[in-house]
Structures are given as structure tokens and as C-alpha cells.
């Protein structure tokens, strides 16, 4: 099931997006480039501030950790050197989590990380902050049971059914197929990790053969659900189409 995205739900933010996938729902807002506090100002590049707000309560060290991960990943895709001495502020409010989230017995921050990244990217895309590349991310869960294969971007229900897990991996790839982020947890060998990485790359990045315009669009009913980059292109395309309605109508 492809994620659902609602773009620009907030009118005052420079860019915003609501993202819902597997019953994780996140609202993201981006303000930038804006004025930066003197103490955070960097002479040659933009400061990036990421705030993650949990669904319930106030932020804890767990959210700080997520913020640090998001910060370092987004810094490598935002062209920070083209907007020096400014601030790009990214706020991500987690709106709802699946009920099973806490009961899975795995590190919950890994489960939400891909969703946070996607929300941040969508909000960034529509805030017109200069970006070097896009980033797509996916969770790979390898269950203990021998017969069961790895789960790709599973929902909480699927995870519940397949637990316990041998290892959980989160990968994020940029549009040019570079691995920007990897968080792996559990017990695994390098071969398993390598395999998980390859699977994740297939899901995140578009096939190199199918770079063409027509082919991907025609079979979008099928492939858009399987490929995150294609899904992202669809989201942007529908948004642009909607904004160009006035032209088409005449």
C-alpha cells in the first residue's frame, strides 16, 4: 500500500505535508530560509533545525536521537552552501501511531524513522528550499522464522504477526542511489545485511532501465505502490497538475 500524502495543509508555513502510511500519521512543516539566531549562525552554510514532536507528551531523549538522525540526513540533501547564514526549520508532529507500536518489542524509533524522513522531504519539496537530491527510506524486518522472508515496509499488523525479529533495518537512499542512512539492529551477518540493503535499494530507487517518461507512468497502478521514488514522482505530478489547472482549463 502506497503512503498517502496531503500537501500544503498549513497556509502559513513555507512548506507543509501530511503523510499517512500504515496508520502512522505525521504532519510536517518547513520554514526557511529564515533569519538565524546569532549563536547558531554558520558563515558558509545554512543551519538546519529539526524538531520532532511525539504523539503524546513532550519530547524525550528518544526524540533528540531521531532529530539528530534526521538532521544529518537532511543536511546531506539540502544545498546548505547555497543559502548561507540562514535557518531552515523543520517541525514534524507525530499525529497518530498504530496501537501495536509499543507492543512489538522492537526499537520503536526505527519504525517511525522512514515516515519522518518522507514527511520532511515532502514538506521540503514544497517549501522551495534548494535540494541536491530526494531521499526515500524503507524499513526491512527479518523474522526469526526460517521460512518467512524479509518484510519490506511492513504495517504494524504484519509486524505483530511475524514477530519476534532477528533484525530490523532502516535504509534511506538518495535519488542518485547513495545510501544516506542506515540503522540496523538485532543479530545478523554481513550477507543478511547486504541482502536487506539490496532489497531496500530496489524499493527506494527507480530502476535504472526505466528512467524514461512513458513507461513508468503507464503502469503506475502497479509500480507506484512498489517503488517509492515513483510514488514520490506521482505525488509531485498530481500537485503540479492541480496547480496548473487554470492553464489547462482555458
Amino acid at each position: 500500500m502506497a503512503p498517502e500524502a496531503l500537501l500544503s495543509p498549513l497556509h502559513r508555513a513555507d512548506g507543509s505535508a501530511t503523510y499517512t502510511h500504515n496508520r502512522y500519521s505525521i504532519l510536517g512543516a518547513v520554514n526557511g530560509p529564515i533569519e538565524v539566531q546569532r549563536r547558531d549562525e554558520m558563515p558558509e552554510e545554512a543551519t538546519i533545525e529539526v524538531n520532532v514532536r511525539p504523539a503524546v507528551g513532550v519530547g524525550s531523549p528518544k526524540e533528540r536521537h531521531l532529530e539528530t538522525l534526521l538532521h544529518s540526513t537532511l543536511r546531506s540533501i539540502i544545498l546548505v552552501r547555497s543559502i548561507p547564514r540562514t535557518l531552515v526549520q523543520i517541525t514534524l508532529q507525530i499525529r497518530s501511531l498504530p496501537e501495536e507500536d509499543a507492543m512489538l518489542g522492537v526499537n520503536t524509533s526505527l519504525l517511525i524513522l522512514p515516515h519522518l524522513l518522507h514527511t520532511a522531504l515532502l514538506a521540503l519539496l514544497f517549501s522551495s528550499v534548494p535540494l541536491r537530491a530526494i531521499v526515500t527510506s524503507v524499513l526491512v524486518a527479518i523474522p526469526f522464522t526460517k521460512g518467512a522472508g524479509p518484510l519490506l515496509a511492513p504495517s504494524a499488523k504484519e509486524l505483530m504477526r511475524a514477530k519476534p525479529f532477528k533484525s530490523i533495518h532502516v535504509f534511506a537512499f538518495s535519488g542518485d542511489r547513495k545510501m544516506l542512512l542506515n540503522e540496523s539492529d538485532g543479530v545478523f551477518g554481513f550477507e543478511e545485511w547486504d541482502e536487506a540493503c539490496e532489497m531496500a535499494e530496489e524499493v527506494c530507487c527507480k530502476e535504472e532501465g526505466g528512467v524514461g517518461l512513458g513507461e513508468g507512468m503507464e503502469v503506475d497502478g502497479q509500480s507506484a505502490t512498489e517503488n517509492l521514488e515513483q510514488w514520490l514522482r506521482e505525488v509531485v505530478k498530481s500537485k503540479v497538475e492541480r496547480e496548473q489547472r487554470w492553464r489547462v482549463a482555458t
Partner: protein
Amino acid sequence: MASTATPPPPTPLSFPRPIFAALTPHPFLHAHLSASKQKQPLRANGRTAHESRQLGVNTGSLTHCNGSAVVRVGNTAVVCGVRAEILTAEEGTVDEFPASSNTNGGDEDEDEEENGYRNGAEDERERYKEISALRLLVPNVELCTGSTPALLPGNAPSAFAQTLVTRIRNLLLSTKVVGARQLRIVHAGPDASLGGDTGGPNPNREGDEVMREGGEGEGEMEIHERLVKGYWTLYIDTMFISLDGNALDAAWLAILSALSDTRLPHAYFDDELEMILCSDDAARAKKLELAGLPVPSTFAVFESDGRWGEDDDGDGEGEGEGKSWVLSDPDTFEESVCQESITVVVDCSTSTKAQIRKIEKSGGGVVDREVMKMLVKRSLERWKEWKKTLSTNSRAFF
């Protein structure tokens, strides 16, 4: 012409080293890595790219802790103290885990045997659940005033410290170095004559056997559910006296050494007083046994066309664009100029095959699958160094 052209180059180079490093850190490190004529490029701190710093471990230096360690990794110095406190199992807390300590535990053990995965006798999920839900392991990280120039004293814990605590807590929980069984304070039940005898050299072992026997007979389940009378909660306080990069590795080394040094006093449930008592007898205190030896190795990636791209074009003409070095065990200076960092946690102690327990990578796209393979190899070498250091300093591991 030549005579006028030659003087300018020495002038920028005539800066003393520290000023060059402070003014333009990125070209400074780049000059070091690319200039040396040897096969192995040397870093600004004199190490080769693959070379890690020496480890120094000193355990048992704090007298008021159950276990402690002072650790040095280069200029990073960390003190870690483990303090054990008793968490009495109130009605509510025990009720949360009645099934997990008996019935589920048995089932899971069988499952794991089927899968060919052995993790002691304890089922892995329940252990995680108990320790994380009751918060039996409480790590904390404090950066002392003056440990690093970046730290502003008197402020709330920085995002850096909070991130570090979260990473350490995740590592403690996911590697499961401390098993819940050792932290349980077990009572053999009022009718069992074992009540006083559980104070053998390894009381929990015996308690566990009692539980297992009970697990087979359905009727005895009720009694054994009341066995866990309390838990030891370990407060793991880590303090950075001096921070010169690679905080996680140093903190983890300190934590592992302190935990391996930890002795828990013999605690038992007294039927008459109806409370948990601790025996004064040091001989009956029990050493905490750690499961496995997970060793983190942190790497930083230095990119020549990183933040100061234009400067580099002038400096290193021979180097192609996008040349990068993976530096083992980075210090603060290197961390400040590197964007990408990778931490690989490996453990070779529990099985013959090397296991990866965790990989954390963020900040850039230089490290791909090929490079990661090399990093895992480097981590395995580092594991041997850790094992050597720790086994000479404490007998807990072997």
C-alpha cells in the same frame, strides 16, 4: 619572475600548525591526508586512516559503587559507575510479567531451539520486555564542565548528550549484555525448604531451576508466579572527564568494564519481615555476568570536496573530485570536519561466526555496500583489541 613568484607560497604555509588547523580545518586535514608520500596517508593526529587509539581500562576505582571503571581512549577519558538499587515487585509489577516468566518463557525457548538460535536459557523477547518495561537499566551520560570546549556549562543536557544516552540505552537493550535473570530477586516460596539455601554461590541459578521444574507441572504455576519478589535496578552513570571524539565507543567501553566489575550483594526475601534483605557478607555477593562482548567501532568519512570544495580545488590538484577517506576512531577535530559517521557493533564471543549487532550510519553517501564490508572487517579487528584489553583488566569476560 621566478624570484617574485616563490615568496608567496611560503607565507600561507608559515602559519603555525594550530592556527592553520583553527582557521581552515578542512584543508588542514586534507593536506595531511593527501600530502604524505607513504602508502598510508597520515592524519593530523599522526595516525593512519585505519589506526585506532590505545585503550586504557582501570576497574574498581570508585568505592561507593557496585562496579566502576575509568577508561581512556586517547584523550577521551570516561568514568562509569554502576549503582544497584532494589525495585520491589509490587503486586502491579509482578502481575505484568506472570506469563512471561513461566509459560511464555518455555514456549519461546522451544521456538528458539527450533530456529537454531541459542541465547542462554532465557528467551530473548521476554528479557527485553522485562528490562525495558521496568527500566531496570538506567544509563545516564554527563559531560563534565570543561570536558570539551563546545560545552556550555550550566545548561540542560545538550542534544548530543541526549542522543548519546539514547544510543547507549538502545545498545544495552538490543545487545542484551545484562540478562534479566541476574537482576531478579527470587524467592523459592514459603513451602520450599530452599528459602535459606538460595544464598549459594549462585542463587538465581537455583531459583531458575525451581521455576523450570514448576513450569512443567501445571498445578505449581500459581506458587512460582510469586517467586520474583524484586529486581535489581542498575543505574549506569557515565561521566566524561575529557571528550576528544568518539564518545560512544569510550562510553561503551567504560560501561562494559564497569558492568563486568559489578558485584550485586546477595538479596533474599525474608518471610518473617516480609521484605527483601541484603546480606553483608561480601563472599556471598554475586558477580554480574555479561552475555557476549559487543564492541562498537566508530568511523568518520572525510570528503575532499565536502564543505570547502573551492579551497580544495586549489590544494589537491592531483586528487580527483570526491576523494574520501574513512577514518577509524575519529577525534573531536576530525568529527568537526566529517559529515558522515558510521558505527558498527560486532560480537564474536557468543558464536563461532562473527555477528553484527548494530549498524548506525548517517550523514552522507560515501559508504556503500563495498565500503561497509571493509568496515565490518575493521570492526572485527577492533573487537580483538577490545577483548585483549578487557581480559587483561577483568576476569569477568573469560
